[in-house]
């Protein structure tokens, strides 16, 4: 499975791309495979400031619904509205077109973010 080196990861199977104080967040290839066909991504927190570990949205697969957790604290700047009509992009391109939100980070990067190697180890790969 593919876990790009330039990204950081969480134990909840999200990825984080850091560009200055703007952070893009999505779910990993492992997560989308586990969930199966993603049919709905709901993020109604744009404009809100949400703490690290709190829920910012939900992702619905055919059979399951999962909460999406903030990998760091910050203000939700943008939701990927392409996912409204094409949620399958999360399956097809989880690190690219399937991104979920952009966040303006508050404070420092949390210490519990994992590197690509560490995330791979977590999955036993």
């Amino acid at each position, binding site marked *: 499975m593919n876990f790009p080196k330039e990204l950081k990861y969480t134990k909840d199977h999200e990825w984080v791309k850091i560009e200055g104080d703007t952070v893009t967040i999505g779910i990993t290839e492992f997560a989308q495979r586990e969930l199966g066909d993603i049919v709905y991504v709901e993020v109604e927190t744009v404009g809100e400031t949400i703490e690290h570990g709190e829920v910012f949205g939900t992702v619905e697969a055919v*059979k399951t619904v999962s909460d999406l957790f903030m990998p760091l604290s910050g203000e939700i700047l943008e939701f990927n509205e392409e996912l409204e009509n094409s949620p399958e992009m999360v399956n097809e391109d989880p690190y690219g077109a399937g991104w979920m939100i952009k966040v303006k980070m508050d404070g420092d990067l949390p210490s519990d973010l994992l590197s690509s190697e560490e995330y791979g180890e977590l999955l036993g790969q």
Partner: protein
Amino acid sequence: MEYTTKKVTLNDVHEKLGAKMVPFAGYNMPVRYSSDLEEHRTVRESVGIFDVSHMGEFLVKGPKALDLIQYVCSNDASKLAIGQAQYSCFPNEKGGIVDDLIVYKMAEEEYMLVVNASNIDKDWMWVKKQNKQFEAELENISDNISLFAVQGPDAADALQPLTKQKLDDIKFYHFAVAEFAGVPDVIISGTGYTGAGGFEIYVKNEHAEKVWNAIMESGKEYGIKPIGLGARDTLRLEMGYCLYGNDIDETTSPLEAGLGWITKFTKDFINSENLKKQKEEGITRKLVGFIMHEKGIPRAGYTIVNTEGEPIGKVTSGTLSPSMGLGIGLGYVKKEFADPGEYIGIQVRNKNLEATIEKLPLYKK
């Protein structure tokens, strides 16, 4: 608690096909091979094969066989001809359901009961206990039998080259015992859990791989694909078929669950007096199917509300319908809200999303 997960005979075959295997009802089962949506469409549009060998099979034989079955089952098995099957349930003594099942009449004084995998041990104890007063011959052959459901509009065409038995002659809820893929005494049953038509094929484990491979080969020109339990669930929900443990259980009465059509008061059976009384007095809640009008997917446990936002029941099964692209579900509501066309709300993450109660099947071809 530690327990071992059982494997179906073709476990390795499924792994080689790339299935995601998950523990389900004590078995390691394929939940999907490629995509739930794609597998679902394959069954609706052409043909797919499910390995549902986790299901349980009990044989009931002898002069007391029918008496036992009539006592433990809600449906009237005396109506069965040889070669005919019947959907039924085991009522418990407290108004609920021990399990739902299919009863096959194999021969005079010989029946096969097909029960849910999650309930095999419970059902076996239950039937054995009830059998004390009948002493029919009972045999639990669950571990010896593999079961493949070949479902979809192309199922008969895909399977016909494998048997001389004319498959079009096997009507819904009828079966034949015939040579199939070179294997003698295969049960070919016109049943299924998808509403897409097709057959369920019962074989001894030692022939499982041969039969599976033959079906995959014969079905190739129809685009046959292996289908996981994920799509099995969305297919059955579109039809509004009950799933034991979700929509029916030890606390739901067959009458509340809309299973009055398999609850026959033409004979006495476990708790029949009370169920008869319930039928006369009327039920207070009913299992209904519903379709969402707003974007949102109902899930088991979500609250159902009326148009005033007051709770009137609970969702027991829910999913996105792959065929319709809408949220669909089953749930219990108070009787006065149970009529088709009734507007209800489904509480999805603190919002009441509009839905209507619909006649079953929810998906109408």
